């Protein structure tokens, strides 16, 4: 996204761009693009490419705040819970107990007491994707009617739970992403909550039995995860180039192209036919850690993206996470962050 912005500033824009979900509204507001719906009606005779290949839910990921389809979903990911099976077995913890965050916390406590190792690491990259999943799975909403609402009672409770594990109990680790994943594959953290895109790295680097299950939820709530990954949007300006871009996209959405892309990047393919294709199924059976991620796509929601000052909104949420994990008051921090973001939406 940042590269695209610089390219635009220097007057050179590519014809097809890959845009991360968190930047979708920002992209829609600041760039000129051709919607897939328009491209289809302009260049195709059959007009069924989009509806045939994508489910309504998948398409909803790529709709902006006005409900307009901005691009086509290209790579998808969801956060999953990886666990060090060797370690869990050693301390008699059953994987089935990890289906709730309360269960994860109890397991983390047990591991901390028995071995001194950390129980849990939740990814901390330059976005708050995983933390949003935590809040969503406690029944909280991140955005409602274009306004940030994550400082609700349920949202605060989820973050408080997370802060307690990090700050009070010291059963969860707070560290930058690369180091956190290193700590997991080196056997110093029992459970890691991070994107499915890390699966092949984790599988290759861990020298213990590692498995993955779907995202946990808080008791009494459903597990809800925001989808990660990206969409493809057409930024070509001349009709000729737009046509070429659309043809190129259709080539990229062939099953064989999508499965190759998926193998190379660790993301999941966006179309139903690719997900159920033979090539992808055999890939899944070789990499069983991808299965929980694929099953979550059916229930995933779109990644919160704020229409105005979206980049600053994301940064504000990162700042809030930093503050909370350093011990500042959860309620106050979330509330002031929410106000700051809503102030910028005006």
């Amino acid at each position, binding site marked *: 996204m*940042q590269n695209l*912005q*610089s390219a*635009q*500033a220097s007057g050179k824009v590519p014809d097809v761009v890959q845009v991360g979900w968190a930047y979708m509204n920002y992209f829609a507001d*600041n*760039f000129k693009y051709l919607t897939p719906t328009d491209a289809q009606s302009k260049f195709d005779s059959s007009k069924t490419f989009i509806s045939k290949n994508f489910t309504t839910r998948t398409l909803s990921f790529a709709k902006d705040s006005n409900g307009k389809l901005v691009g086509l979903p290209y790579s998808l990911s969801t956060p999953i819970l990886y666990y060090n099976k060797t370690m869990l077995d050693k301390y008699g913890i059953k994987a089935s107990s990890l289906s709730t965050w309360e269960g994860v916390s109890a397991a983390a406590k047990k591991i901390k007491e028995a071995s001194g190792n*950390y129980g849990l690491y939740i990814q901390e990259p*330059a976005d708050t994707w995983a933390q949003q999943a935590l809040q969503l799975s406690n029944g909280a909403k991140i955005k409602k009617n274009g306004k940030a609402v994550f400082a609700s009672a349920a949202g605060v409770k989820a973050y408080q739970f997370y802060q307690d594990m990090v700050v009070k109990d010291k059963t969860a*680790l*707070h*560290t*930058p992403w*690369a*180091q956190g994943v*290193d*700590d997991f594959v*080196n*056997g*110093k*953290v029992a459970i890691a909550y991070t994107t499915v895109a890390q699966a092949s790295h984790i599988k290759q680097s861990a020298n213990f039995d590692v498995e993955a299950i779907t995202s946990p939820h808080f008791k009494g709530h459903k597990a809800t995860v925001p989808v990660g990954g990206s969409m493809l949007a057409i930024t070509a300006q001349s009709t000729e180039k737009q046509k070429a871009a659309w043809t190129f996209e259709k080539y990229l959405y062939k099953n064989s192209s999508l499965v190759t892309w998926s193998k190379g990047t660790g993301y999941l393919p966006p179309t139903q036919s690719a997900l159920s294709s033979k090539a992808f199924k055999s890939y899944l059976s070789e990499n069983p850690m991808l299965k929980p991620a694929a099953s979550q796509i059916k229930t995933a929601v779109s990644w919160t993206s704020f229409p105005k000052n979206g*980049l*600053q909104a994301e*940064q504000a949420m990162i*700042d809030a996470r*930093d*503050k909370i*994990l*350093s011990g500042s008051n959860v309620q106050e921090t979330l509330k002031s962050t929410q106000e700051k973001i809503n102030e910028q939406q005006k």
Partner: protein
Amino acid sequence: MNNRNKKNKVLTIAYLFPTALILLVFIIAPIIYTFYLSFFNWNLIAPTKDFVGLENYLSIFTDPVNRKIILNTVFYILLLLVLNFLVPYFISIIVKFFISKMQTAYKIIFFIPSLFSLVVGAMLFSWIMNPVSGPVAFFMRNLGLTLPNWTNSGAMAVVVICLITNWKVFGYNFVLLLTGLGSVPQNIIDATKMDSIPKWRMIWDIVFPLNKSIAFYVLILTIVQGLQYVFTPISVITQGGPYYGSSNALYHTYLNAFVLYKTGNASALAIVTFVIFLVLLYLEIKFVEGRTSRYE
């Protein structure tokens, strides 16, 4: 005579022109444009720029995050002055005047890290210093100690980042200073030996003043690098975190300009940094040149 003078002038201008042009296009024009942008709110691509007057500058001094960043910058520079200037100077004096063997070997050993890219260095150190599963933590645990989780503390993260730049810069500064010490005339040093003047007096009263120009150069380099070289490890390891605790003026300018696209705030911060450094350099030049002229 007059004709010749004229010709000289034309030649002077012709010779200086290429350099002047490069300076103008790549240094002076961008500075002027940055100065212009610092009065606007703009995201690099919007067709209109909102004029906001001095608001961007005011925010530098009122916004707590910006204040934190300016303090961090000062902390970085002080720490780097010790690590990258005082320590190499001290060691180069020891190597030059107190150790007679293996001078070349020291030069080579200390110089090797400066050939590596800082990105590689930063990634390497982020692994070595990993407080939970890195080798340093492992050895410390065997000795009954624990490595604190330095990425969660601004001050500790700054220290580690400085050590990483130190790893890279130390050898280069050391070789420069050692070469400077080598150019102190041997006959003066021999004369102090004949008069049995203590070594520390010889160093303090003769070597230091004579080596001032090289030392000054390294000092300036350290200050300027203090801003630039720490950028890479910040960007690779902490991204300025925890909550801007390890960010400095340059990284924050980058974050504002090319991550958040607040070019106005970024430009204002860049201009303030520029002015501070201009003043700093002016003071140093004035101070040091005033001193050296006594000996030359």
